[in-house]
Every structure is written in structure tokens, then in C-alpha cells.
């Protein structure tokens, strides 16, 4: 019977990751002897390398990079692609911090990617949005329309399982406003403060976590490793 029956080999299910990266001028500053943007660029390479090492993650993870900086600019720096085709050029730091617009764009992008998967009959995991910032948003203030919309969309989206939202604050002369970041991030996943410029360690953790997610089965609770190596004062990450 082995010889007579045929089976279909469906497309691999996809696990979408959107990196929302702050490329404002402060990211070009030095912290603990290194330029933050350089360390971020190196970290992104680690993410690719480590995902490439994993057979399943390599086939299943798709990455998009959205940057925010410049003259109030939000750009799709790298459109969704497989890990294999993910070779973004180095990011440059200049300008302001339009974080609000970037978050809304990121949410639109994951929703449109899910629609694409559905149309193609491709199964998928819950997408991840991963925000990295070292400043304060310059396109919204607590309580204004933009602010309220961003907070609502992040919180509702997380609550309705539309995506998983993570926020990482980076230090510096002023550094990320962790209090504001906390108001934006979903209540069930408070933002994390990066230790110094440990971007490589952070991206390594991110790749390990996505490897676990992209291999997970129905009902499986993915348990993440400790974030102690790269995160300040907060070492436990809830299962999702």
C-alpha cells in the first residue's frame, strides 16, 4: 500500500516577525564604548545566522524590517521574506522618532501578511512584532489621538491574539522612556530594558524563541529561555 497511496506535501506554515527599529539620530550615539546602531546591525546578522542553522525555522520564519527615524519617516526597510533572502543592508541613524506611525504600520503589515497566507492556503503561527527604541516618540504624546490609537491597537491586538507584541528599550544619554513604553506595551508583556548594547544576545534569544515557536504543535505552550543575559532586572518571560 505504501507504493500506491499518495500524499500532498503542503507549504510549510509561516511564522512572521516584524522588527520595528528606531533609527533616529540618538541610535548613532555611543553607549558603553560602542555605537548603538552598529551593535544593532551586528545583532540582526546574528538573528539571520542562528535562524539559518535551524531546519524548521529556516523554512518557516519570515522577517520584515520597518525603520522609523529621519524626517518623520517610517520605511519598510526589508519587505517580508524568508530567512534565506533576509540580507538587509546596514541601518543608518538620523532624525526623529515617529514610533506611533511605525507601530501602526507594523500592525497593518502583519494583518496584510495573514490575509496573504489565507489567500494562498498557507497555515501560520501568530505573528510577532518586536519594537526596539532608545528614545521617546516624537509623533505622539500621552493622551493625544495618535497615542490613544496606538495604545488601543496594541492592547486590543494582543488581547485578541492578532499578534504578540514585544518592546525593548535601549539606554543612552536620555535613553528609552520606559514609563511611556510600558503604557504602550500590552499589560501582559511589560517592556524590557536592554543591558548596555547587548543586541547580539537579544537577537540570539529572539532566534531561539522563534525556533521554538515555529516548531510548536497545537496546544503546546512554548517556554522561553531566561532573558537575564541581555535584559535588565527582569528575567522571566511568560509562556505564550
Amino acid at each position, binding site marked *: *500500500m*505504501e507504493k*500506491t*497511496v*499518495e*500524499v*500532498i*506535501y*503542503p507549504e510549510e*506554515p509561516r511564522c512572521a516577525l516584524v522588527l520595528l527599529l528606531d533609527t533616529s539620530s540618538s541610535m548613532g550615539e555611543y553607549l558603553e564604548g560602542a555605537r548603538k546602531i552598529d551593535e544593532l546591525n551586528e545583532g540582526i546578522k546574528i538573528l539571520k545566522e542562528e535562524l539559518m542553522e535551524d531546519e524548521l525555522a529556516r523554512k518557516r520564519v519570515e522577517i520584515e524590517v520597518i525603520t522609523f527615524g529621519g524626517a518623520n519617516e517610517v520605511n519598510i526597510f526589508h519587505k517580508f521574506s524568508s530567512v534565506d533572502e533576509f540580507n538587509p543592508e546596514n541601518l543608518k541613524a538620523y532624525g526623529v522618532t515617529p514610533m506611533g506611525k511605525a507601530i501602526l504600520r507594523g500592525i497593518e503589515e502583519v494583518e496584510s501578511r*495573514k490575509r496573504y497566507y489565507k489567500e494562498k*492556503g498557507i*497555515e*501560520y*503561527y*501568530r505573528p510577532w512584532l518586536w519594537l526596539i527604541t532608545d528614545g521617546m516618540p516624537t509623533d505622539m504624546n500621552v493622551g493625544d489621538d495618535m497615542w490613544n490609537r496606538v495604545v488601543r491597537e496594541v492592547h486590543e491586538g494582543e488581547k485578541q*491574539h492578532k499578534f504578540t507584541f514585544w518592546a525593548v528599550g535601549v539606554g543612552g544619554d536620555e535613553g528609552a522612556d520606559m514609563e511611556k513604553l510600558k503604557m504602550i506595551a500590552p499589560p501582559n508583556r511589560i517592556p524590557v530594558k536592554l543591558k548596555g548594547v547587548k543586541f547580539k544576545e537579544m537577537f540570539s534569544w529572539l532566534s531561539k524563541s522563534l525556533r521554538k*515557536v515555529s*516548531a*510548536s*504543535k*497545537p*496546544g*503546546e*505552550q*512554548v517556554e522561553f529561555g531566561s532573558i537575564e543575559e541581555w535584559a535588565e532586572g527582569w528575567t522571566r518571560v511568560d509562556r505564550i
Partner: protein
Amino acid sequence: MKEMKRLLVFGASVGGFLHEKDGSGCQDAWKYRYIPPNMLIIAVSDGAGSSKKGELGAKMATDCAVNISPKQNLRELVSECVYNARKALEEKGKEDSIELGELACTLIVVAIREDKGYVAHIGDGAVVSELGDELEVISEPEESEYVNETTFLTDEAWELALRVREIAKFNALAIFTDGIQRGVLVKRGNEYIPYKGFFNPLFNYASSVKEEEKACKEIENLLKSEKFLKLSEDDKTLVIVIRRQ
């Protein structure tokens, strides 16, 4: 006895290679029982991969689902099988002081008496029937947005997720878990279509089966074959019921 044996049942559960690698064996289970004079009950379950006792959950759910006193109304009976399984898991949870979620598993129960049949189903996996050249999905995998999500018998919303369907006249049935579902059902929009390249040769083979035991081995070999290993790293269960002419 003679009447009952007009239905043949055979199948197998095999562990996926991911599970074998980390030594957690097979978390799928299946069980069937003939209840004289003319009733057949089959239960198939997929224990959740990461819950510590998923294997125990699936085993208990199938054992308890088929352990039922027969009654006239088949639709009620098939739901009762699921309630039995749920109750057993609840009690086991209390007895061993473990969270019910640790016993997480899906469940498909099929009850057949003469020409009539019903299926009760929670979670993924599916039931496909054959009559003449017609293939039909009797009970489809539960709709869930994400590939790693489904509803389990141990979930709070299990009663809402319970689907009961009537099985019309059939020659053969195939009941299977998530581990092979993507290789044998084609999804078009929200609809599942049985893949003929799989089911036609399968039911063709099934119609020639004389001995259940030998056929079980044949199914086991099929699920362990390269074709199926390549399909998914998950545990796989396939059970066939065939009406002997």
C-alpha cells in the same frame, strides 16, 4: 456475532520523529469496542505535545469513551462517550492533583449501528467516508486561525467546541489525527476536500482486508514509511472501518 463482524476495524498510532528523538513516545491513542449485538464504537485521540501527561490523557480519553452502556439514541450515545471521557480526565486530574490542562487531548468518537452512524469531535483531526466513488469529509478539523492552536477536551470551552454529525450510508470510514491531516485533505477556502490519491488506494486496499491484525500492521508500516515521515514530525493515527460485503 455474525452481524457485528460485518464491520472490520483496523488502524495504528505511531510516534513522530520529533517525539521519538526526545523520547516521549507516541501521544496519539485509539481504541474500539464491539457492543453486542450490533454496535461498534471507535475513539481516536491526539494528546497535546507539550502537556506533561498528554499521552495519559489520550489513552484515558479513548479507553473511557468506548466504555459505555449502549442506548437506543445513537446521537445521544456518541455525545455521552465524550462526556464520559471528559469526566474521567477531570477525576484523574483531581485524584493526582494535576491541572486538567496537563491531560490535554483532542477526541473523535464514532458510533455505528447497522446502517446508522454518528461522530462526535473536539479539536483537529477528521473523519472521511466513502460510498461508491464518493468521498466525503464527515467531520473536519476544527477551524482555528493559528497552526499551533486547537480546542482540547480539557479546555473550558469544550462543550461549545463539541461537534456532532450524522454519518450517512457508507462503505468505509477513515478516522485520523492532525499528524496526517495536511497530507490527505486539500483545503480550498474554508472547505476541506479528501485527496483521492490517498483515499482511493487506501479504501481499495481496505476492501480486500480479511484479517484485522494483519491490516493493523500494514497501516502501521504505512504511517512509518518515508512518505509519511516526510509529511510531518507529529504523531500519526489512522483508523479504518470497512463494511464487509
